[in-house]
């Protein structure tokens, strides 16, 4: 077994604060190989937490456990606790469906449903969960597409197949689709990696705007992006959470050597 790595953190030590999600001793393995080891993290309500680290460090794997996406992966095993509003997402009595509706997710590659129009994509989570009222659907489509900065580009053409949009537009559509189910937490797995700088800037503005209402957890390869959008940053390396602190402190005054090297661009 691997020895337990101590996370450097000065966060939430005497916590009277309100946490939306708490991950306790989370270990995720694929077969016998652990990809995430004993990670402890707390996510404050209405804040943005960024996860950074080199490729293969386990940040996406960790993000996916926060709404039980590993249920779909053969061989993946999650140990530990993930609490959302005080309820353990991995407890046996829990139906993950209800919690997934609280937790929206945006994936690394845009994945709009290929057979559906723009409108139908945004409303998929609602319609397939039984929302039929046209007026409400229309309202939500406009609202969420505006939040995702896509509305102006598609408002006249909502019946168009989603796959005819450009890659960046598709990704913003997926953000709108995730927001449409009115989640409280938004998980984003490198949402801007397929976007150009302008679209990226728009997404970042969106994130800053969404922070007023949502708890956002974002995986990113782009350290400047982490600095721009997040309040807290966790640095992961080889499955361990090395350092988890206020974003500013982590980037300007890293306590751990590995973190220092990474944020200075010496490896990654």
């Amino acid at each position, binding site marked *: 077994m691997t020895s337990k790595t101590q996370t450097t953190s000065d966060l939430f030590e005497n916590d009277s604060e309100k946490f939306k999600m708490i991950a306790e001793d989370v270990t995720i393995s694929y077969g016998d190989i652990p990809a995430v080891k004993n990670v402890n993290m707390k996510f404050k309500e209405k804040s943005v937490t960024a996860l950074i680290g080199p490729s293969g460090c386990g940040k996406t794997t960790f993000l996916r456990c926060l709404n039980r996406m590993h249920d779909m992966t053969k061989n993946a095993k999650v140990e530990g606790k993930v609490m959302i509003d005080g309820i353990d997402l991995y407890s046996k009595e829990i139906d993950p469906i209800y919690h997934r509706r609280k937790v929206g997710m945006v994936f690394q590659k845009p994945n709009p449903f290929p057979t559906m129009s723009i409108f139908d994509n945004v409303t998929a*989570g609602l319609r397939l969960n039984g929302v039929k009222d046209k007026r409400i659907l229309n309202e939500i489509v406009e609202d969420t597409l505006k939040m995702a900065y896509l509305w102006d580009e598609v408002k006249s053409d909502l019946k168009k197949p989603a796959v005819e949009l450009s890659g960046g537009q598709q990704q913003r559509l997926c953000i709108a689709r995730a927001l449409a189910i009115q989640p409280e937490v938004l998980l984003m797995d490198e949402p801007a990696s397929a976007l150009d700088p302008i679209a990226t800037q728009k997404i970042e503005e969106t994130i800053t705007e969404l922070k007023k209402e949502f708890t956002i957890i974002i995986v990113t390869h782009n350290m400047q992006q982490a600095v721009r959008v997040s309040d807290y940053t966790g640095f992961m390396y080889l499955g361990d959470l090395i350092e988890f602190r206020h974003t500013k402190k982590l980037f300007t005054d890293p306590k751990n050597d590995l973190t220092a090297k990474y944020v200075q661009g010496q490896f990654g």
Partner: protein
Amino acid sequence: MSSLEKRQEYRALFKQNVQKRLIVDKIVRIIIISCVIAAIIPLGSILFEVFKNGIAAISIEFLTEIPGSVGSGTGGVGPAIQGTLIVVGLASLIGVPIGVMSGIFLSEYGDNRLARSVRFFNDVFMEFPSIVLGIFAFLVIVLVLGHFSVWAGAFALSLIMFPIVARTTEESLKMVPITYREAGTALGLRKWVVTMRIVIAAAKEGMVTGVMLAVARIGGETAPLIMTILGSSLFFANMNTPMDALPLRIWRLSMLPYESAQLQGWGAALVLIFIILGINLGVRTLVLHKKETMQILKTLKEKVGGKN
């Protein structure tokens, strides 16, 4: 990093290679095209032969009437057309749902020992000679009931059908990228909703092709029908009597020593081909272009309404 000379040496290698590659490319293309032609020639000549010989037999009388006296060259294949539509329709009603559901099970819930054995037996089943399935239907239905029956025919054909449908459904569903399932799951949808509304929607075309392959296959089956519906010269009476079907009629007509009967056999074969083609095109249009079809129907309705 390799030195400049090394890299120039590599480049020289590539250049020399170009001519050879172009030739290989041409040869491969010629082989591929010849294979396609080799595959199309028999298909084309069969269609041509059937059309050439069969077209003379086609008439309203031929399509609607019962067979005339043997060797007279009169009458038609009405009962056979009717019988084929009934038995293929009934077999599809049984075979398609079972096949599609099995395919969904194999693809979406197929990661366990049960599914692996189902998949294995399904594959074995698919290779069964159809006459064996006919004999099976004969034993369990015809012998038990004591008479030939339409049910037995539909049962035998559905046994041929569902393994094909199950396998093609499974393969089509597996082609759908996991990212769509993930996206659906992340929206808080239940697995069956994701499967039914998202995965199947994306796999529809392959599934329809599979079903159509199976329909075409059973439409032409003769052996199991001899054991189950036997054949008849009369129109469908009830489920518990023998019934005619086009493959049976083609077989009987082609066995007769009269030229007029053989001509009718060609005609019946042509009719069968057109029926399968018609079903294929019809189902494809309905399932894959539902919106367009509805639009056409709507405009037609409006036009008809306008005239009144």
